[in-house]
């Protein structure tokens, strides 16, 4: 439950940061926090008491209870890649925004867009 609540807190902080921070770069960082929250949540779903990492060692036939659930790990591998890709593209956008408007402050940007 604590891990879940931790994910919830991270998510809230990230979303709040995206909405309230004035600077676009900071919004982007807050967005990363939010994405990490989802990853934390999923990975914590994979945890099983008394189980090990989902890589088959030497030994007999594997039993489900002995290994962590590999599915959330796989999903989060994908989610991490999505997060990285989005961040990369967002940084590219910010470079362009910065060069065109010479600010990343949302309010000034909106004034200049007008």
């Amino acid at each position, binding site marked *: *439950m604590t891990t879940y609540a931790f994910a919830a807190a991270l998510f809230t902080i990230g979303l709040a940061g995206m909405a309230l921070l004035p*600077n676009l770069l900071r919004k982007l960082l807050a967005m990363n926090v939010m994405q990490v929250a989802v990853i934390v949540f999923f990975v914590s779903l994979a945890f*099983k008491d008394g189980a090990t990492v*989902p890589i*088959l060692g030497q030994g007999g036939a594997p039993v489900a209870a002995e290994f962590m*659930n*590999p599915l959330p790990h*796989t999903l989060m591998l994908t989610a991490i890649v999505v997060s990285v*890709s989005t961040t990369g593209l967002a940084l*590219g956008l910010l470079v362009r925004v910065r060069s065109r408007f010479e600010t990343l402050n949302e309010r000034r940007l909106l004034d200049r867009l007008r």
Partner: protein
Amino acid sequence: MGASPPPRHEASRVRRLLGAAAFPALFTGLVLGMAELPEFGDPASPASTHVSPRFIEDAAAETGAANMVTAVLADYRGYDTLGETAVIFAAGLGCLVILAAAGGRPNLPAAGMSHPFGSVILDAATRILVPVVLLFAVYVLIHGHISPGGGFQGGVLFGSGLIMMRLVWGPAHEGGAHHPDVPVFGPSLRSSLMLACAGILGYAGIGLAAMAFGGEFLNYGTLPLGSDPAHVRELATLGIEAAVFLTVAGTVGVLFDTISIGMRENGVPIGSGRGPRE
């Protein structure tokens, strides 16, 4: 961005107040919902008992991969991974469009930092480190089958090796014109793009090849690579991982190069104190 501009500050204050109320509510809601989820670490939870046991118990026999994550990633849910590769390719494509291929320029510009951090120590260290990093990347790729690792991890490592070279040696002019004494190894921006494209084509190509042999899209078991289906799947998975490796390595290169080009050409200062802090 509606039609009425002036009372912005008022609206913003209202929005902040609303926001201040909304976020605690969101947090409370999430926690209330989470209270009903299965306990953390509960081996009897639906997630632990419903679909995943097959991945743990049968993956090695069905796909030949000792790393169950790899088995799920590249085989059971290989379609997700194709999508994921496309996502990262999309990011590279996007940065190319936004930053590098703009301005009516017929060719892509040379990539790299405007002011390489070259110094004797860095130069010497990089000469030693880069080959090691690149080699390790390939190891991570191949070994991903039986240990933590795989195409993504390997690709990122490979890409970071490329970035290291760019940082230290500057733009990769064809033929290494910038530092004639340094043997510049590393693809140009266009080659990075081609790597990324090749990865996607390879991945989807393997999937289509499976269709050509009568299976579903990405059903590697039908490929004529041997008699043991698990072995065939294992081989194909390696091919998949290699394709992912290419796209990730290429895209990491593309992202770094395009952003550095964008900053250089659009005059965004780096580390001059006029950064984005407002």
